[in-house]
């Protein structure tokens, strides 16, 4: 077995794991990140929901119970982490904007609006006042986008349909990476002579550099352009992940991608190493500290059996709210299902409690009590706790 040695080993390649590893790397620690594959964030809107349940994210967070992971980070920690995220995204060439003190609106594919906090530049113009004029562009045969949902809810809106030759969002976005396709699209768009101030499209403006695609279109027709995030697979989510991954590579973080942790080596109260299944020889990855950022049920950090919930890598104790009949409410729309509170409970240093391991830290949606769906705080919580857990690691290391 080949062995590799690091200061810190982060398990989980979603937003929290990436933010934790970037924080550690900027502290000068030799860091590795292990991921089973592309994260669930590729299915998200790509926007950073910090606390979309209320209009004022920080105000909402202040009202949370002390055992909520946000409360463990504290307001200053949250704001600092979000600022660090903004710096990262600038460096990645996918700038985000927004104010942690105030939520903004984006438009959804069914014409409703949604609160969010930080948005990629391509959604900056989505926050519009009611009654403003809007023109929607759709694409021939696109599966998950029906412009009439939007035009029926916005009285001063109209739409047109462009034939991109493919029906999927991924397919269309890939076409926008091609300059000649973009030119043809712009020529068509000019021909429409859109009188409205704003033009909205499903989020397909390229997979790599949407800001310059948007800029080009915007300059050509002299209108404000913005994207509407669509159903999974989501292009803005994919862009977010790829941009963050680029920065990790640039900062020298060692990535073990597409690898499953198959076993854990412990020596007393210390995790010494994890073993990865790889084609060929198994790899032993050794670290002084470990960060668990494997996410909740969807990404597989937690697994629900018929009666109990298990943590997948270290078999840590998991807080579970009641019996299975209590896991879900009867109303689909009410939110706040009991199961949203299931997870790994941590102390103020983000060490899992009752785990009997001293050099392990946890962050992201695997944390107990986070209620991501009902509070609408997924990426924000991942960023805040990822950075906070990494800071605790750094203290432990130095």
């Amino acid at each position, binding site marked *: 077995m080949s062995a590799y040695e690091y200061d810190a080993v982060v398990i989980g390649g979603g937003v929290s794991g990436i933010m934790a590893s970037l924080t550690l790397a900027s502290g000068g620690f030799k860091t590795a990140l292990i991921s089973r594959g592309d994260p669930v964030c590729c*299915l*998200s*809107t790509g926007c950073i*929901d910090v606390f979309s349940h209320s209009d004022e994210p920080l105000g909402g967070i202040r009202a949370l119970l002390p055992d909520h992971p946000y409360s463990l980070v504290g307001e200053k920690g949250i704001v600092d982490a979000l600022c660090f995220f903004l710096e990262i995204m600038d460096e990645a060439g996918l700038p985000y904007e927004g104010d942690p003190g105030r939520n903004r609106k984006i438009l*959804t*594919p*069914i*014409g*409703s*609006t*949604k609160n969010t906090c930080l948005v990629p530049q391509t959604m900056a113009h989505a926050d519009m006042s009611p009654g403003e004029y809007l023109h929607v562009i759709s694409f021939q*045969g696109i*599966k*998950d986008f*029906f412009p*009439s*949902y939007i035009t*029926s*809810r916005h009285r001063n809106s109209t739409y047109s349909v462009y034939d991109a030759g493919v*029906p999927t969002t991924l397919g269309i976005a890939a076409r926008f990476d091609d300059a000649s396709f973009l030119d043809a699209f712009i020529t068509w768009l000019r021909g429409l002579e859109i009188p409205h101030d704003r033009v909205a499209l499903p989020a397909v403006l390229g997979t790599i550099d949407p800001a310059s695609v948007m800029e080009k279109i915007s300059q050509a027709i002299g209108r404000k352009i913005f994207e509407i*995030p*669509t*159903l*999974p697979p*989501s292009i803005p989510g994919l862009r977010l992940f790829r941009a963050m991954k680029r920065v990790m590579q640039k900062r020298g973080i060692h990535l073990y991608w597409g690898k499953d942790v198959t076993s854990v080596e412990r020596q007393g109260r210390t995790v010494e190493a994890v073993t990865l299944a790889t084609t060929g020889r198994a790899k032993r990855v050794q670290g002084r500290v470990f960060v668990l950022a494997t996410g*909740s*049920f*969807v990404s*597989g950090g937690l*697994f*629900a*059996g*018929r009666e109990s919930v298990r943590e997948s890598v270290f078999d840590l104790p998991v807080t579970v709210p009641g019996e*299975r*009949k209590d*896991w*879900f409410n*009867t*109303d*689909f*729309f*009410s*939110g706040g299902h009991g*199961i949203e509170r299931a997870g790994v409970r941590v102390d103020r240093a983000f060490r899992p409690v009752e785990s009997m391991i001293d050099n392990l830290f946890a962050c992201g949606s695997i944390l107990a009590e986070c209620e991501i*769906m*009902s509070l*609408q705080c*997924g990426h924000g919580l991942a960023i805040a706790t990822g950075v906070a857990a990494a800071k605790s690691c750094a203290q432990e290391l130095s």
Partner: protein
Amino acid sequence: MDRQYNDLTVRVSLYMVVTFFHGIFHEESGYMIKTDVVIIGGGATGCGIARDLALRGVHHYLVEKGDFANGATGACHGLLHSGARYAVTDPEAARECISENAILRRIARKCVETTGGLFVRLPGDSKRYRDTFLNNCEEAGISTEVLSASRAIDLVPELNPSIEEAVVVPDCSIDPFRLCMLNAFTSRHKGGGILIHHKVIDIVKERGRCTGVKVLDRFTSQIKEIRAKIVINAAGAWGDTLARMGGSDAPMTLSKGSLIISNHRLTNMVINRLRAPSDGDIIVPNEAVCLAGTTSIPVDDPDAIEVDPREVDLVATQAEQMLPRFGTTRLIRAYTGVRPLLKAETSDSRSISRGFRIIDHKNGMFSILGGKLSTYRLMAEKTVDAVVKEFGIKAHCKTADIPLDGQDELSGYPLSKRLKSIDNIVCECELVDRAQVENAINSLGIQYIGDIQHRTRLGMGPCQGGFCTYRALGIMQETGRLTPDESIEILKQFLQRRFRGIRPALWGDQLREEQLVESIYLGILNMGQQA
């Protein structure tokens, strides 16, 4: 795999069938309809009666408040009993079953899969029961063959390796929805009228006699009156309510039975437990999945039933004793139906006869009560016998001899061809494309998302419509059948209904899927906040 898609195609060509029904929606516009017999209920019994009347030349209308197979017919195992299940407890039902089993295999080839069935005896199950079972099967005329454990496991490799032995019987898997459609096809073909999504709101009476029904068209909210000489109440669990509307009553015992669906076809044969009928003792393969059930719990109101998570645990635990993989495989949903059983003094609903009874209310209404899917044709025959006697017509039942019409159009074609012709897929789980959805909406005039699902299998796969229902409704509002607001409202109702079926069986991979679906509707589309 091939089979699944062949069957899918089969269902798609059923569009044709409905096209005929669509014609009649335009014929009557508010005025009164006159016929000889009006049948209430579009389950197997009602549709079977319609076909029987059609073949005997009696003009009729059938009204159904939902889609076909809306009640117990659509919420059962889809098991065509050999009768062996009843051999010990209810020999008469057993004899009826084996005789109908043979008939349906003959006349309904495209609805029946001749899987064969096994009764498996687990360690601890009574050997004496097994002897009585074999003896009674013989008396009822049900063929049996005793297999050693190893031979049984050769037939069904997923069987619990510690079984003592197994008995082969001629159980089959049957598609109840298709069965209803094909029975109704004959009726329409011979000039009968079929009105689905028409709810009976009143029974028309003249001098104490039932002379017709008033129905509400659920889509247009229009009220229509159908005048008839005889009213047949084949409303299943709702039978007593209808009989009371007609001024009489039809006492029944209602018993809830809940089932679960596995994501895989773990067996190619029906699996029964060789012991006295009890909870969770039957597993039936159906297309690409397996259905396991049931429970039996007395209920009062057929409209207020839910699956309790404990029922799911009970059925899953029992099923995994016969097929251990049932314990680890992904369950995609649970569902429940209400058995309309004959009224009995006993409180144990399992021991009530599965036999049926025809009540002549002596007021122009006949009620058909009890029975089960496997004997629907016989029930229809006896009901129509009583009705034609009333008319003084001498016409014999032909339904046992003539194969169901419309089956020839149900020809599948291989997956390879199917994949070639499919593009722009709307439902990835079941490979339904946009053209099929548009066809259902435009040429069939389908107004309900559930009807599209029944006829195309859209939304029937592992995600249970989590992705494709939004798309199908989007397409529906683009065709102008619905306004955008209406389609969002329907989407909400669908999600709520879907969740009711999924919630009792949420763990493992299905829980992951559910949270993903939640993140779409409550997160990306933000439907929770504005509800």
